[in-house]
């Protein structure tokens, strides 16, 4: 039976060779995270490089160049062009470099609280909406519990990942949310 890995980096760590070489590969991968995100977004939208270039109004070679470029060479204009062509919006954010993961979790928890409160204010205008929002509150409760329970079950002393200067996150999508709901409903059944 062949050994399997969850990422190319994990695979490389388990291959024979010099650590200095493995570091070069890691730098290549981490240094192009923005380009990898743009590549994924284009493929997800079912666009070839040529089609996207046509939509943006540039050459295919520019798309190819962007998708192979290191983080420092990708401009805000590139991000805007991709977003516009793919029907997305760019969200940029800064965080204090000393921010710990627990602080991030607390931050997001407060943001969720804020959004839920806003939702309850809006729902008071209409009975039907209020009913829907109440149902949604229950879903949030189940989903949050599922997320925490799943994360808790993953404790097995793995090494923490190296933190990079640029954190690239995929846009929040309805499909991700639906997946969580699907899993949580199967858990609660």
């Amino acid at each position: 039976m062949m050994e399997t890995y969850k990422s190319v980096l994990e695979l490389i760590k388990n291959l024979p060779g010099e650590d200095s070489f493995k570091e070069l590969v890691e730098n290549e991968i981490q240094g192009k995270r923005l380009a990898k995100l743009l590549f994924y977004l284009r493929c997800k939208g079912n666009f070839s490089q040529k089609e996207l270039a046509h939509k943006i109004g540039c050459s295919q070679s520019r798309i190819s160049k962007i998708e192979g470029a290191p983080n420092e060479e990708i401009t805000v204009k590139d991000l805007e062009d991709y977003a516009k062509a793919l029907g997305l919006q760019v969200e940029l954010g800064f965080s204090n470099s000393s921010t710990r993961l627990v602080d991030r979790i607390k931050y997001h928890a407060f943001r969720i609280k804020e959004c839920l409160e806003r939702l309850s204010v809006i729902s008071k205008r209409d009975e039907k909406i209020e009913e829907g929002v109440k149902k949604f509150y229950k879903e949030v409760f189940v989903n949050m519990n599922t997320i925490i329970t799943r994360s808790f079950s993953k404790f097995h002393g793995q090494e923490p990942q190296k933190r990079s200067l640029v954190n690239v996150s995929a846009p929040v999508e309805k499909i991700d949310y639906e997946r969580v709901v699907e899993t949580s409903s199967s858990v609660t059944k």
Partner: protein
Amino acid sequence: MAEWQITKTDKFIRDFEYYQKKHPNELVAVMGNVDTYFRTLKKLSNPLQIQAGFIHREPAGIKAIDQKGGKQKIKLQQTRLYVYPDIDRSTLFLFTIGNKTNQSEDIRYCQEMVKKLKGGGGS
């Protein structure tokens, strides 16, 4: 749907060691591209949806990932990493690394590997 995983053959390990010594820049570029391919495959699950200049379609569902991409300071030799995205097993197999010269021989080897995989022999 099961999460996609990546695995390698013994031949790939030998090729990896050779390229690390003889063509390290090409190997870094190819591994960077296979990382891009695999990350996207994990999220989309459909190999046909993933298209780029560095991905070449070969027979039997095999893909050749080359060294192209970005602005490279030095001219890199043509290098191809042959992979096979096995949808049934949700596994990306890394078969072998080669150059333009032994391309047809490499593809034949990969086709044999795919045949074995489809026949049920997974190791």
